[in-house]
């Protein structure tokens, strides 16, 4: 059913995107920095939710791929200061990592899968922590340049200022979100949701379930890698903490906050996450405990109506 006029939602999104483009002209440096972090978490989280909300697989180890993206990008930039190369490289490393670990993980039941993702995520953390020669150990890597956007021989654009880097992050984030939007409304998106609702039925409908779980896992890994790769040029350093399970918790919390079963949920959640964290941190340094409370409250407190549409556990 085609409409003549754009829907209210499209207009709203249009305004939002416009506002995001105008942001550096309206506000100061810190809010721009904060928005970059929100965008990074948003990309991280929509990848996570493809896996969770759409395919039914709960991963507690996405930070592993986030870190692969970050370290991959950092190592490249330290050698070849070309932003596009660094970002692409980070994404590729994360994707390959997700593919390999996915092959080991997706053949298992959902509980096992979640346990394995936690274990694998921390495995990457322990490698980042210990492999001093390559990753800098617990000191991490420093001096990562905010390299220029460059296609050799054609164009070279400096993105040294916060405002310029913001536009890089914004454009890439919007492209990533748009691509995901298209994906979830495609036949693949439908197949993944079928797998979420009933793996058995999907299998008996002719869907090779394991293969598509791997596809979803790899895409989630690619998105985590992109998000991670955007970090080093921003902060000029990477440390192993970005591979820790507490980082894996961030897309989980953002998605829960914003809504698991809405496409925009993780994006809204990323925004809420930073706002809430910002508020909590003003009062106490122990913000994880409050997020724990929020998670518990969200899981326990869904009104009966929402709970009843979740799939009941088979006995």
């Amino acid at each position: 059913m085609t409409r003549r006029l754009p829907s209210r939602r499209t207009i709203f999104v249009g305004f939002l995107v416009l506002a995001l483009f105008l942001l550096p002209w309206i506000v100061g440096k810190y809010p721009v920095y904060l928005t970059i972090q929100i965008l990074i978490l948003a990309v991280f989280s929509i990848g996570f939710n493809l896996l969770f909300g759409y395919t039914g697989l709960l991963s507690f180890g996405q930070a592993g791929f986030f870190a692969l993206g970050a370290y991959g990008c950092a190592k490249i930039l330290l050698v070849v200061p070309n932003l596009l190369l660094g970002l692409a490289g980070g994404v590729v490393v994360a994707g390959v990592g997700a593919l390999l670990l996915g092959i080991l993980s997706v053949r298992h039941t959902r509980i096992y899968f979640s346990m394995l993702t936690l274990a694998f995520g921390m495995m990457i953390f322990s490698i980042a922590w210990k492999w001093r020669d390559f990753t800098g150990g617990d000191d991490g890597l420093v001096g990562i340049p905010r390299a220029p956007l460059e296609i050799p021989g054609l164009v070279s654009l400096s993105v040294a200022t916060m405002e310029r880097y913001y536009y890089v992050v914004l454009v890439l984030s919007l492209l990533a979100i748009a691509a995901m939007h298209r994906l979830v409304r495609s036949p693949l998106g439908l197949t993944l949701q079928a797998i979420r609702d009933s793996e058995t039925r999907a299998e008996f409908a002719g869907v090779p379930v394991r293969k598509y779980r791997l596809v979803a896992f790899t895409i989630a890994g690619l998105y985590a890698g992109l998000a991670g790769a955007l970090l080093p040029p921003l902060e000029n350093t990477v440390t192993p903490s970005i591979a820790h399970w507490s980082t894996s918790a961030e897309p989980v919390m953002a998605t829960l906050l914003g809504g698991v079963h809405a496409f925009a949920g993780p994006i809204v959640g990323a925004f809420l996450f930073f706002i809430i964290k910002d508020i909590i941190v003003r009062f106490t340094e122990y913000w994880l405990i409050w997020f724990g409370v929020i998670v518990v409250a969200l899981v326990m407190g869904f009104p009966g109506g929402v709970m009843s549409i979740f799939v009941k556990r088979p006995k």
Partner: protein
Amino acid sequence: MDTIAFQGLIGLSMAMYLWLISAGLTIIFGVLRIVNFAHGSLFMVGAYLAYTFYGQMGLPFGVAVVLSLLGTGLLGLVMERWFLSRIYAIDEAYQLLLTFGFILILDDAVKMIWGGVFKIPPIPAFLDGFWPVFGRSFPVYNAFVIAVGLVVAALLWALFEKTWWGRIVRATASDREMASAIGVNVPRVFSAVFVFGSMLAALGGAIGTPVRVVAPGIGATMIIQAFIITVIGGLGNLKGAFVSSLIVGVLSAYGTLFFPVFELFFIFVIMAVVLLIRPQGLFAR
């Protein structure tokens, strides 16, 4: 040769910590069919409580351990009774999320109450000292840990195979509807089993205190190791958990000896290998 045998003993004592925490996780999963992500945090709480009672308040070691078991058991009861039991019927992902929320709370709570700096509690005098074994000095305390682990294994076997309560638990584990139909109070069994499993984790933490550091974050490390054990041994399989703990503990000890840099990484490699060649676990039925 002596070094190898000695390191094997060290590995054996490491295996016992792993065994205590995985036993609790396995029993809880076997009966309630849930995986408590916060199980490692219960280990950690057990450790901190034991440290407080023994290391700070100076209570006798045995008393401190018992108190920490009771305290952690109480925490486990709250978790199960007030929270987990209310969401048994929903998608298991939400149970995982709930217990994940507990990790966040407990990890920070521990930091708030005891501070973030790690503690090293003293070894009780009667267990201090060394025995000459294989030409080296083997800490008496490690022997104590091995003894505790083996005793627990024997007690658990006796409990589940020989006692009336054990039979009820096994019946509930295999078919809760049937158990309920013959008059078993299933919710109460669930709570009891959860508390029991929590206390096992706490035991691991409590007796672990004199030789391991007590710090925030040990909960997460332990739960991951417990997961790896259950992957290797097969989820819900107590015998498998025991044997896998032995395998992982001893192999880790050898790993530390020959490849010190990759100690942490080593058990992940074992897990990955098992996943590739026998994904359902080495001892799955």
